[in-house]
């Protein structure tokens, strides 16, 4: 009986081209009040583009949008900019939170439309009214709290309160749970249900199919910019959605049993990262082994990897091939420790520079004679790495900025594969990377390990951990809460340890 629900927004044949490349084509969809509509698809499937069109950030190249007016009749609209969308009752909550950290909660909610009297801001009224919207999203904080002091989950709720405060009837959420813990995500889903009950149309994009399964009344699946399916609740199961998303079967696992006789290449003893003073962690990784660090956001995976790489200071010892390494990243890179950082735009890439510059940065040091760059050798190396990483397009002079996420990540990984590191650390190796590139990256990482390197990677995606890791270290509160061999690992066992369950219990119950 979904037809009883009023259509608030109709998408008709919407498409968008960028520089001649089709990002989205021929999308039809109805967004109904009192319904949660999920949009799913791989990275690069066109989800973000669709959301941007719905929220007026980007104008469609083809097709049109129709928005219901007060009487419920649909009228074609052109949303020119976010302001136009707001006027039409559409509000977008971005994936990256956009709150000004120095403003208080009320100030953030009313940013740009502060209630005023005679030109002076009416702070008291603003806080009073903010209270109303905060109650609606179930956030119990004082409206005068600075946003910067709130945890991410609460900032997200402030964003949603802000969206609702514009009297929006259509709320669009872009990956709302991506940076939340499980419990926080549950809370958010409850709030989404509550909003649905109030007649709001909720549209959300998510990578977490579990969430989609739990809450969505209707799912639109995108692949390569086209709609491959629209399913109403009860008509679908997880496997069906996955097939529509991927259009093929998921790659088989690449993990293998560890070779106990292989030499230990990386040993970490009593590591305490300076960010968080927590219990020390110790582990070792053998040649040819890929170890996955699992755990919830904030469990200390990134801190551990950055400490080992020498990017941030730490206590405890790090040994490569039995010899201790100390000092900063430049010393450690020379000793063979390489890191692929989580935030590649900020810490990994030189966006305005060419692929060749990005890929040869570490190699030029290894191969230099008298500190002079071997320019002919460099050209050859870059050509080989582009080929090996299957970079697309395969142009060494192309600016990294213009590449897709997957190809950007390949540029960073290629930089390290060029110097055959003893230890490769990867932090979220395939975040923002599409499925095809992900498989290629996994294959290259596996090949590096097979050649005798030790690999440690951290991933928030359990699927990836289960797919790639030979051995899994589950982190909780800054240290290793438990270890799982490939054959005994499962999503349940990992989550048990990651949420503070005891190792013995976890192993017994879930092995």
């Amino acid at each position, binding site marked *: 009986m979904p037809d009883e629900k009023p259509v608030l927004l109709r998408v008709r044949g919407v498409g968008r081209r960028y520089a001649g490349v089709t990002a989205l084509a021929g999308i039809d969809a109805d967004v109904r009040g009192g319904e949660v509509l999920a949009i799913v698809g791989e990275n690069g499937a066109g989800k973000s583009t669709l959301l941007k069109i719905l929220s007026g950030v980007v104008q469609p190249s083809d097709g049109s949008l129709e928005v219901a007016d007060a009487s419920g009749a649909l009228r074609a609209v052109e949303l020119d900019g976010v302001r136009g969308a707001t006027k039409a009752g559409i509000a977008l909550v971005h994936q990256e939170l956009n709150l000004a950290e120095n403003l208080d909660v009320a100030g953030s909610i009313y940013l740009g439309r502060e209630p005023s009297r005679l030109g002076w801001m009416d702070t008291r009224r603003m806080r009073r009214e903010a209270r109303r919207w905060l109650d609606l999203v179930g956030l119990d904080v004082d409206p005068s709290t600075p946003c910067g002091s709130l945890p991410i989950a609460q900032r997200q709720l402030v964003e949603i309160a802000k969206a609702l405060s514009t009297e929006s009837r259509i709320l669009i959420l872009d990956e709302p749970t991506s940076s939340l813990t499980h419990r926080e995500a549950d809370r958010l889903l409850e709030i989404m249900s509550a909003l649905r009950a109030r007649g709001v149309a909720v549209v959300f994009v998510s990578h977490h199919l579990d969430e989609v399964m739990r809450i969505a009344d209707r799912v639109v699946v995108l692949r390569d910019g086209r709609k491959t399916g629209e399913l109403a609740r009860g008509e679908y199961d997880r496997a069906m959605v996955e097939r529509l998303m991927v259009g093929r079967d998921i790659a088989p696992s690449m993990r293998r049993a560890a070779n106990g006789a292989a030499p230990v290449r990386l040993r970490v003893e009593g590591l305490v990262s300076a960010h968080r003073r927590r219990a020390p962690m110790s582990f070792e990784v053998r040649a040819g082994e890929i170890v996955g660090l699992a755990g919830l956001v904030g469990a200390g995976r990134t801190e551990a990897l950055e400490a080992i790489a020498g990017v941030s200071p730490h206590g405890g010892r790090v040994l490569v091939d039995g010899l201790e390494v100390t000092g*900063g990243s430049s010393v450690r890179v020379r000793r063979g420790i390489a*890191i692929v950082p989580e935030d590649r735009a900020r810490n990994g890439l030189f966006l305005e520079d060419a692929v060749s510059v990005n890929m040869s940065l570490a190699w030029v040091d290894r191969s230099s004679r008298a500190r002079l760059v071997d320019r002919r050798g460099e050209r050859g190396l870059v050509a080989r790495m582009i080929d090996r990483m299957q970079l697309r397009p395969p142009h060494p002079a192309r600016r990294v900025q213009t590449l897709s996420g997957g190809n950007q990540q390949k540029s960073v990984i290629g930089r390290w594969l060029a110097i055959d590191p003893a230890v490769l650390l990867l932090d979220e190796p395939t975040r923002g990377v599409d499925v095809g590139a992900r498989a290629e990256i996994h294959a290259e990482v596996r090949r590096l390990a097979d050649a005798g390197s030790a690999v440690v990677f951290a991933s928030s995606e359990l699927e990836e951990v289960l797919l790639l890791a030979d051995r899994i270290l589950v982190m909780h509160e800054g240290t290793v809460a438990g270890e799982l061999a490939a054959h005994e690992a499962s999503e349940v066992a990992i989550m048990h340890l990651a949420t503070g369950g005891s190792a013995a219990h976890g192993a017994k119950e879930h092995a």
Partner: protein
Amino acid sequence: MKKALGIIGIFAAIFIVACIFGENFLTGINLMQLTQRAALYSILALGASLVIVTGGIDLSIGSVVCLAGIMTPWLLVEHEWAPAQVIPTVLLMSAFIGLCHGLLVTRLRLQPFLVTLCGLLLYRGIARWMTGDQTQGFMGEFGEVRAIALTKFAIPGIENYRIPSTVIPMIVLAVLIGLFFSRTVWGRWLLATGRNESAARYSGVPTAWLVTMSYVACSLLAGFGGMLFIFDIGSAQPSDFGNFYELYAIAAAVLGGCSLRGGEISVIGVVVGAATLQVLRNTIILVGLSSQLEFAVIGAVLLVGVAADELIRRFNARRLERTGAAASA
């Protein structure tokens, strides 16, 4: 090279204007003096560009010029040191000043603007105090040392124009710095550090060391330039010698294609940029504009140049997006 084309065009335009409207512009003596000034300011500008390429700035160049320049005759004449002692001492002191800047910026994480602003005040103050604010000069002596900056080399076949000796260190420095960036690992890494310091650090680039060394090189070149300046002019007052030289240096670097955001440099551009400013100063006087207008004209030219650069960049970016063509670096 591509980055330098714009400034070469501006240089040519101003040069032509000077030729047409400037009385006595094309005389040998004027061009000789102009070459001398262009060479000296180029040395300062090359130093400034080394710091700018890291995303930093050095406002103390003029004061280091003053301190080094004033100390040279002060030690030679008042304290009767030998030239072989004075020159290394002054250069070492300049390098030490740069080292302090570098360490304050990289270790204490102070902002380059503040560190070198304090330097600007500090070194001039020291120079004035040291000398009792008295004019320092060579008293007509030390001709053999001053010859470093005063010698002119005749070109066979040309009568009125001879090449000043300061062109030699300028060219040597420009070539070395050019090779440093195009051929050495450190040059590559310095550019990478300027582009994205964090990514460079994650990639194993010793960013703190490289940035510190750029400040050392910048102050060293400022001190070296200061010495050449004083050899050239013979005497100077601590209160105004080197005033605003840092701005000429920074302006030359920016005109020459260095981005203040860091990560970009064109050595040819910087040298031509320094020359352009000197031709411009010369032209203002020769065409009969009031010399009080000098700063205003330079400011206006700089503004137009930088704005044009930004507009062209945006135009290119938009064209790129429209055609979807592959970007080439």
